């Protein structure tokens, strides 16, 4: 589906049986982590098993690649992988090993994300997206401390240093405006993604790469290509590179609806760029 629509980067859609939630490769295949309680994934009717950090985190770099369908990776069909960002992992994990959240952020970046991203790059993955709902969807309404954003930025710099992948940092389920422009300044990814059902595009300022979450992944209403294009407003003049995208994972709508939304994204791009 994604290839037929000429998407720039193609993901596996987290559809293999091993990848039942975005945290699963880390709860089941990283040393130091045990599978904990089943918990609601933000404000959805989906669930994940809590990663219980009971020992020093250590990944051999293959936790994610073993989760993907090997034939799709070998054939080069998959070029993009979605991973939980450090702040989302730390927010959702239960930590009984590290003495601080900061310690866990850096351990996750250094000992898990770095070897994973390095390995994925060697396999031919070209794009890594860090999904970061916990940055903007705040439990109990408490704002994210700037210090944690700084720590995540520093950690991700280590993860990405010298690795030949492009990267994006996608926020969803909440309004990112309170974290702008700090987010753009502190996080070292090539692109930044926003859920347009939550974040007003007018608040985004300007920058290099934007992942514009224009299609509402939480609603079965299928926006027309015209509506999607209209949601771009004048962003084309403020960002050098724009990727049209759903607001978040499309697992919250039936498959037929998801497919229609992807098709209309492709048509909207055609209208906006002529290609």
């Amino acid at each position, binding site marked *: 589906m994604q290839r037929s629509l000429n998407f720039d980067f193609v993901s596996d859609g987290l559809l293999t049986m091993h990848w039942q939630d975005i945290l699963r490769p880390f709860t089941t295949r990283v040393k130091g982590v045990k599978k904990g309680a089943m*918990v609601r994934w933000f404000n959805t009717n*989906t669930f*994940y098993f809590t990663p219980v950090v009971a020992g020093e985190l250590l990944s051999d770099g293959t936790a994610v690649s073993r989760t993907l369908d090997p034939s799709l990776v070998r054939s080069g069909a998959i070029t993009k992988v979605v991973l939980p960002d450090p702040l989302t992992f730390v927010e959702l994990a239960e930590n009984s090993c590290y003495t601080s959240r900061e310690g866990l952020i850096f351990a996750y970046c250094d000992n898990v994300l770095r070897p994973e991203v390095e390995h994925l790059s060697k396999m031919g993955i070209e794009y890594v997206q860090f999904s970061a709902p916990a940055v903007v969807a705040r439990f*109990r309404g408490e704002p994210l401390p700037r210090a944690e954003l700084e720590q995540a930025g520093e950690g991700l710099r280590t993860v990405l240093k010298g690795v030949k992948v492009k990267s994006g940092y996608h926020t969803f389920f909440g309004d990112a405006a309170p974290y702008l422009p700090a987010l753009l300044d502190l996080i070292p990814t090539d692109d930044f993604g926003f859920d347009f059902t939550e974040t007003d595009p007018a608040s985004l300022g300007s920058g290099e790469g934007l992942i514009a979450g224009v299609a509402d992944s939480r609603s*079965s209403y299928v926006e027309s290509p015209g509506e999607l294009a209209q949601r771009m407003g004048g962003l084309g003049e403020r960002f050098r590179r724009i990727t049209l995208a759903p607001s978040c994972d499309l697992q919250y709508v*039936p*498959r037929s*609806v998801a497919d229609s939304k992807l098709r209309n994204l492709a048509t909207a791009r055609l209208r906006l760029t002529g290609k």
Partner: protein
Amino acid sequence: MTDHKAFPTQEIGSLPKFSWRTKPFRQQPLEEGDIGVARAWGRRLGVKNLELLLRLLKKRSEFTDEEKRRIVEFSMLFAIAMQEKAGGHLDEPGLDLVWSGEQARTEMYETPVSNIQGFEFLGRVRSFDNKYWREASVRQKPAYLRDYHFEEFLYTKGHTSRRAKIPVTDAITIVAWSDHYYYTRRWRKRSLPPAAKRFSARREMTLELAGVIRRVVRDLIRRGAREIQLDSPAATQYQTVEDAKLVAEAFNETTRGLDATFSLHSCFPPKYGYGVLFPHLLEAKNCSRFSFEYANRDSYAAGLDGGRRVGYEDLKLFRGYGYEKQLGVGVVHVHTDRLPTVGAVRDRILYAQKVTDLPPENIFVNPDCGLRTRKPEVAYAMLGLVAAGAEEAREALGGN
């Protein structure tokens, strides 16, 4: 309403369906193994008129609607027997409150939505792992079509000597699991921030749907239902103060002016637990019992200290807000085949009583949630653990 037995026991949600119950509805032929399972479990549970079922199942395929109805009735009998005989080795086996274990329903969302006017099904959406629900979109104002639960309730009531209860999926959950098309369109042109528009649409749909469900509940009461459980697994989904207030408001609207024992069941909240609902949930004044899942987050070790009973921390919320009515306490985690020891279950019960300081007769004991995802053998063992844990907890209290 107060039960005079310490730690009364109940099933809280669904029970697994046997293959001989599901295959005829999927147009799949029954095999000898399916019939063998019916025979073995029927004998084990002492199901009356088992030979009638076995003779019926030998047809194997192309069942008529009437034959399917009889299969569903037998399935309800099996579910009731499972609850009545759980913990067969005990002095008092079985659970105190029983129902037909969702055997007469597709599941807790699809059945009500199929029987309320205004919905159109869209397709399957994943909930977790390989579990899906068939999402519907609301296309017009919901309207009452029929009392979609009264036949199963009457059947349960007529085939158990225990107290019969009837779970009813609440408006909060139907709204959370549906697409809000009709209401989104009604609110889309209002000059409100996007989140406020979404909440307004959700609230309007919830309260209108609560009115429809209220009629279903009223009809059940007229038919003799005294114990009604409103199922609200989505109560903790949206996690805003307004939504927490809406849970109570919807409960009150559903039960307004009706006389029965009403309880509310919820489960699997986000990371920080049920705190998102407090204190607003307690405005559900007609609710006699809040039944939540806790064992999922607990350790498997026996013991009465807070460290071992970490999953039950949220019970302190009830005490903190001066709650004095009943609680249903989940004491068996249902999304695993791993069985806790009776000692651990007993201590979960005793700890719940200790931290809430409620009279033991106000602490109902149940699995965390529905057991439909477990194999029958595991589900039956879990029900047995509920009964056995409660019995040991009673003995422990008596010993004190």
